[in-house]
């Protein structure tokens, strides 16, 4: 597949929302996620010659995005942020950072939300520790809600491979979550 043969419009139409959900599962920052997805498409069309048709284009795009997320984390580690400037620079000072996320929230009811949110972070962190191929299986199964045959075809695994991966992934996830004491 050459660059001039690829329909960039179709690429955006078919994969942008999926990639955005994927980025959000790792970054939890909508603007940053959108930026990285756009970067991913830019890299993809310049590198389209290196795309091998035997792998699925979505899997390929996801791997580019993943690379960008890791690069972002590396850069972010060394970035200095000034806590005072952000203190005075709130976009909307009438909004509370957590209480306004939920209608009619009080300190009591918000606690459940926080716990839920923490489970979120732990869960996606634990998923992040799984081998790449397993992560692909989890994302296809639960994010894409693909049927088993499609997952197997896309990721080039046999049906028995699929349930073995899911079995092991669940054992590892449970182990990881248990250690974080969030169950």
């Amino acid at each position, binding site marked *: 597949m050459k660059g001039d043969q690829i329909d*960039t*419009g179709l*690429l*955006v*139409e078919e994969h*942008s*929302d999926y990639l*955005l*959900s*994927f980025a*959000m*599962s790792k970054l939890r920052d*909508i603007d940053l*996620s*959108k930026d990285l*997805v*756009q970067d991913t*498409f*830019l890299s993809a*069309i*310049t590198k389209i010659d290196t795309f091998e048709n035997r792998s699925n284009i979505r899997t390929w795009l996801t791997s580019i995005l993943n690379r960008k997320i890791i690069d972002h984390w590396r850069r972010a580690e060394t970035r200095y942020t000034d806590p005072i400037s952000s203190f005075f620079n709130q976009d909307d000072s009438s909004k509370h950072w957590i209480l306004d996320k939920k209608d009619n929230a009080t300190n009591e009811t918000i606690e459940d939300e926080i716990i839920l949110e923490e*489970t*979120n972070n732990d*869960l*996606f962190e634990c998923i992040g520790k799984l081998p790449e191929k397993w992560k692909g299986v*989890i*994302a296809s*199964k*639960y*994010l894409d*809600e693909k049927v*088993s045959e499609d997952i197997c075809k896309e990721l080039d695994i046999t*049906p*028995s491979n*699929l*349930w*073995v991966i*899911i*079995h092991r992934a*669940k*054992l590892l*996830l*449970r182990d990881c979550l248990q250690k974080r004491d969030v169950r």
Partner: protein
Amino acid sequence: MKDCQEITGLYEQGKINRISISDRIAIRSHKMICKLCRQYFKDSDLMDVILTKKYKDLRKYTFSTSEKTKMKKVLENN
């Protein structure tokens, strides 16, 4: 007799494919005697629910039509 590893594996297989009657009986009888596997079955079902929900939550994040159009334009010019 199948061990816990095989039984919990069969349980996951059963969620994806149809498994034989004898395998289903093996799971059932093992379930009666094994507390750890009973716990695994519960946890496995719970993880299906949580993972489906968490990933579904993520799908609310989408690009607007104008954002997509803008992105397509940027890509075409590159």
